[in-house]
C-alpha cells in the first residue's frame, strides 16, 4: 500500500474521532482494521494528526496484542492457550491449524491470507478449546474442526460464515449470531432474576443521589471484580470529590483466565448492567459513562450498541432520564485491544485515554482523579447488575442472601474437570464443596479459586467458603482432576504472567520469567530440593517489590501451590551427589559449539571420578 493511501486512511480515521488524542485507542484500532497493521508510516501519520510524539504512538501500538506494526493476515486466528483450553486439547487444535495452514504459531501465510497466533484466555473456558477468527468466536474445537475451518475460510473468507448453529439465548440474536453458549447452570435471585426494564432507574431518580448511595451502602454491596471494595463508599468518595465532569466506567475487561461470567451477563442482562451504570452516574453526578469492553468480546459490540440505542429511545439514556430534570447521561463503548492488565482500574483508565494500559500510582485514587483527571468510578459488570437489583428490590432483599460481611450472590465461572462447566449464581458464603458438587466435580484434586492470581486449594480445604473473608474471587473456579500435574498448571499460569507483564518494573518482568524457567527445570527432572525454597524467596521478592497488582499477584501460582501441595514438588526434585547444579546441562550448552566445530564434545567421554 502506498504511503499516500496510508495517509488517507489515517486521516479518515483520525477525523472520525475528532483528532482527539484520548481517542488513540479507537484510531489505532480503526487503522489496524483497515490496513491490517499500524506500520511505521501509519504511526507517523497518527502522531502528526493527533499532534503527539511518534514514540507515544509506537509505545501504544506495541503495548496491545491486538495491534501490530507488522502486517497481519486478512484473517487472524487467535488460539486461546490458557490452561483449561490446554487440558481440553489445545495442542491438537494448534497442530491441526498449523498443518492446514502450512505455517506455525506466530506466522502469516505467504499469500497474506491468514495469521495464526496464540492468545490468553478469551473467556470461553466452559466450551474450549476456543479461538477467535477475527472477531468471530469458534468453540469446542478439535483438530478436525480446525482443518474444516481453514478449508471453509479458503472457500469463503468471511469468518461469520463459520457459525452454523447459534448458541443459547441472545447468542442467537441477529446482531450477535454467535456459536457461544451461555451455559447458565444456576440462575440465582439477584443477577439473573426477572428484569423489569426501567424500574430501577425510576426508583433511583425518585430519591436524592445521596439516598441512592445510602441504599447501596445499606445493601453492603462490595466490588464483584474480586477486591471487594465497598461500592457505596467508592461512589461517596467520587461524589464528594472536587472537579467536573465526573465519569463512571463499567469494567468489562474480563481477563482473569477462567472467568467468563461477565460475557454471559452482557449477553443476557445488558439492560441490567447499563441501568447500574446509569444509576452510578446519577449517584455521583456524572453525565457520561463508558463501558470498557475487552477486544475478545468484540462480537457483542453491535448488539450492545443496539441495546444502548433502545435505551435512548425509551428515555433510559440521554436527556432528562425518566423525566428527571437535570439528569442527563449517556454511555459509550470503549473497545480494548487485548491486554490483561487493563482489567486493573487505573490501567483501564489509561487505556480509555488512549495510553498504554499501565497502572497508575495511587493516590490519587480514581475517585479523586481518574479518567481525564476527573473524579471517576470504575465498577465491575456484575457489581453494576447488583446495583440495579438493589434499586429494584431494595437493600433488605439483597442482604437476605449471603453473609453479613459478603452480602448478595456471586457469579462463578466454573471450568475444567467437571461435568457441568458454566456460570453459577450462588449465595456468598457457599462452601467450595457445595460448588464442586453442583458442577459435578466428583474427583477434584485441586481447585484454583479466582484464577491464576489467587489461591489453589486441595481437598482438605473444600470446606472453605467463597466470600470476601475467605476465598475472595472475581468468579473463576478452575477444577483440576487427580491426573493433572500441578507444576504443569503453574507453568502455564506463569506463561500467562510472563506474557502479560508490561515490563515496566524489573521484579515482575524478570521475576516471572525466572519462576517459569525454574518450574520448567523442575518439570524436566533437573530440580534440586533447594529450588523449592529459592522459588518461595523469589516469589516473596516479586510480591513485595512489584509496583502494581499484576506483579504482586504474579508469583501466587507458585507460592500458593508450594504452600498447599509442597509434596508434589518434593517428589520431582533430588540433590546432586557431587554438588553439581542439576539445572546446568552441559550437553545442551555445547550443542551450538559442536555444530560450529563439526565434532562432538570430549565431555561425552568424561568419566566421573
Amino acid at each position, binding site marked *: 500500500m502506498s504511503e499516500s493511501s496510508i495517509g488517507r486512511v489515517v486521516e479518515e480515521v483520525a477525523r472520525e474521532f475528532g483528532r482527539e488524542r484520548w481517542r488513540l485507542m479507537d484510531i489505532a484500532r480503526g487503522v489496524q482494521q483497515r490496513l491490517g497493521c499500524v506500520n511505521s508510516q501509519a504511526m507517523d501519520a497518527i502522531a502528526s494528526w493527533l499532534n503527539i510524539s511518534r514514540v507515544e504512538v509506537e509505545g501504544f501500538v506495541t503495548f496491545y496484542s491486538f495491534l501490530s506494526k507488522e502486517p497481519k493476515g486478512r484473517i487472524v486466528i487467535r488460539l486461546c492457550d490458557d490452561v483449561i483450553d490446554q487440558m481440553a486439547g489445545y495442542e491438537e487444535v494448534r497442530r491441526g491449524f498449523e498443518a492446514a495452514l502450512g505455517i506455525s504459531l506466530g506466522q502469516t501465510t505467504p499469500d497474506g491470507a491468514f495469521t495464526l497466533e496464540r492468545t490468553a484466555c478469551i473467556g470461553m473456558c466452559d466450551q474450549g478449546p476456543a479461538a477467535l477468527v477475527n472477531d468471530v468466536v469458534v468453540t469446542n474445537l478439535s483438530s478436525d474442526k480446525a482443518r474444516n475451518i481453514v478449508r471453509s475460510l479458503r472457500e469463503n473468507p468471511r469468518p461469520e460464515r463459520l457459525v452454523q448453529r447459534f448458541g443459547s439465548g441472545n447468542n442467537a440474536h441477529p446482531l450477535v449470531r454467535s456459536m457461544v453458549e451461555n451455559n447458565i447452570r444456576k440462575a440465582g435471585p439477584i443477577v439473573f432474576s426477572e428484569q423489569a426494564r426501567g424500574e430501577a432507574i425510576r426508583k433511583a431518580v425518585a430519591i436524592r443521589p445521596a439516598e441512592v448511595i445510602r441504599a447501596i451502602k445499606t445493601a453492603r454491596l462490595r466490588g464483584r471484580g474480586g477486591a471487594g471494595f465497598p461500592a457505596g463508599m467508592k461512589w461517596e468518595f467520587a461524589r464528594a470529590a472536587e472537579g467536573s465532569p465526573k465519569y463512571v466506567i463499567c469494567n468489562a475487561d474480563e481477563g482473569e483466565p477462567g472467568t467468563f461470567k461477565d460475557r454471559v451477563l452482557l449477553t443476557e442482562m445488558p439492560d441490567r448492567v447499563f441501568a447500574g451504570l446509569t444509576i452510578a452516574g446519577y449517584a455521583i453526578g456524572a453525565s457520561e459513562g463508558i463501558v470498557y469492553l475487552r477486544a475478545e468480546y468484540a462480537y457483542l459490540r453491535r448488539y450492545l450498541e443496539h441495546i444502548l440505542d433502545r435505551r435512548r429511545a425509551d428515555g433510559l439514556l440521554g436527556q432528562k432520564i425518566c423525566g428527571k430534570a437535570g439528569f442527563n447521561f449517556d454511555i459509550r463503548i470503549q473497545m480494548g485491544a487485548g491486554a490483561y492488565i487493563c482489567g486493573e482500574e487505573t490501567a483501564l483508565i489509561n487505556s480509555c485515554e488512549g495510553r498504554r494500559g499501565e497502572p497508575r500510582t495511587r493516590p490519587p485514587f480514581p475517585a479523586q482523579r481518574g479518567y481525564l483527571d476527573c473524579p471517576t468510578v470504575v465498577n465491575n459488570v456484575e457489581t453494576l447488575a447488583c446495583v440495579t437489583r438493589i434499586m429494584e428490590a431494595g437493600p433488605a432483599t439483597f442482604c437476605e442472601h449471603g453473609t453479613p460481611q459478603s452480602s448478595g450472590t456471586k457469579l462463578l465461572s466454573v471450568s475444567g474437570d467437571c461435568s457441568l462447566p458454566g456460570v453459577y449464581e450462588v449465595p456468598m458464603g457457599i462452601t467450595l464443596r457445595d460448588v464442586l458438587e453442583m458442577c459435578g466435580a466428583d474427583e477434584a484434586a485441586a481447585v484454583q479459586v479466582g484464577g491464576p492470581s489467587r489461591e489453589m486449594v486441595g481437598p482438605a480445604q473444600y470446606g472453605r467458603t467463597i466470600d470476601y473473608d475467605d476465598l475472595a474471587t472475581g468468579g473463576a473456579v478452575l477444577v483440576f482432576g487427580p491426573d493433572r500435574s500441578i507444576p504443569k498448571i503453574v507453568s502455564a499460569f506463569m506463561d500467562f504472567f510472563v506474557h502479560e507483564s508490561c515490563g515496566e518494573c524489573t521484579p515482575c518482568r524478570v521475576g516471572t520469567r525466572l519462576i517459569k524457567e525454574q518450574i520448567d527445570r523442575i518439570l524436566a527432572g533437573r530440580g534440586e530440593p533447594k529450588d523449592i525454597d529459592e522459588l518461595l524467596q523469589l516469589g516473596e521478592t516479586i510480591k513485595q517489590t512489584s509496583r502494581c497488582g499484576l506483579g504482586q499477584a504474579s508469583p501466587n501460582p507458585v507460592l500458593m501451590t508450594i504452600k498447599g501441595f509442597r509434596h508434589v514438588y518434593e517428589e520431582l526434585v533430588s540433590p546432586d551427589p557431587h554438588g*553439581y547444579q542439576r539445572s546446568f546441562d552441559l550437553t*545442551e*550448552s555445547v550443542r*551450538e559449539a559442536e555444530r*560450529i566445530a563439526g565434532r562432538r564434545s570430549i565431555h561425552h567421554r568424561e568419566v566421573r571420578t
Partner: protein
Amino acid sequence: MSKPRLATCSLAGCFGCHMSILDIDERILELAEVIQFHKSPITDIKTFTEHCRIGLVEGGCANEENVEVLRAFRRNCDILVSMGDCATMGGIPALRNFVEIEECLREAYVDGPSTHNPDGVIPRDIELPLLLDKVRPAHEVVRMDYFLPGCPPSADTIWAAVTALLSESPVDLPYPLVKYD
C-alpha cells in the same frame, strides 16, 4: 596432623584475582605456615591428588574445560569460594552472552579488522575446548559456598576470608573490604 590444603584456579577470568592473592605480599609466608597449596597456577600442580579444605575459584565458565575443572574442584574441596566478579556474576566475559557464539568466533578469527586468516578457518582442534552457549557464573554450574565480590577483591579481602575460613570462624568481612565505589 597435616596442614589443610588450599587449591585455586582461574577459569574465564583475567588472572587479576590471582594477582590479588599475590598482593598479600609477605603474608604469603604466614599463610604457608598454616596451609599447603595444592592444585593451583601458583604451584603448577595440574590435578587433584588429595582432598582440599578450600578452593578459590576465579572466573566463570566459558567453555567445557572450565566446567570440567570447576566440577573437579567441587568434588575435591570442602569449601568453594567464588573469588571476584567473573566467578560471582560472569563479569566481562559474560558480555558475549548477548551475541551468538558463531558471530563471536567469526569476529575473533575471520572478520576482525586486525585478523589475517585468508582461509577463513575457525579453529576446531580437539585440543581446544568448545565454548558454552553462554558464559555462566560458577554457582550456576556447581554449588558454591562463599562469594567474594570485587574486580579484583583486594588482597586484604582475600586474606580476611581465607584466614576466617581456616580458623572456622564466621566470614564477616568489614564493610571497607567489600565497598567498591
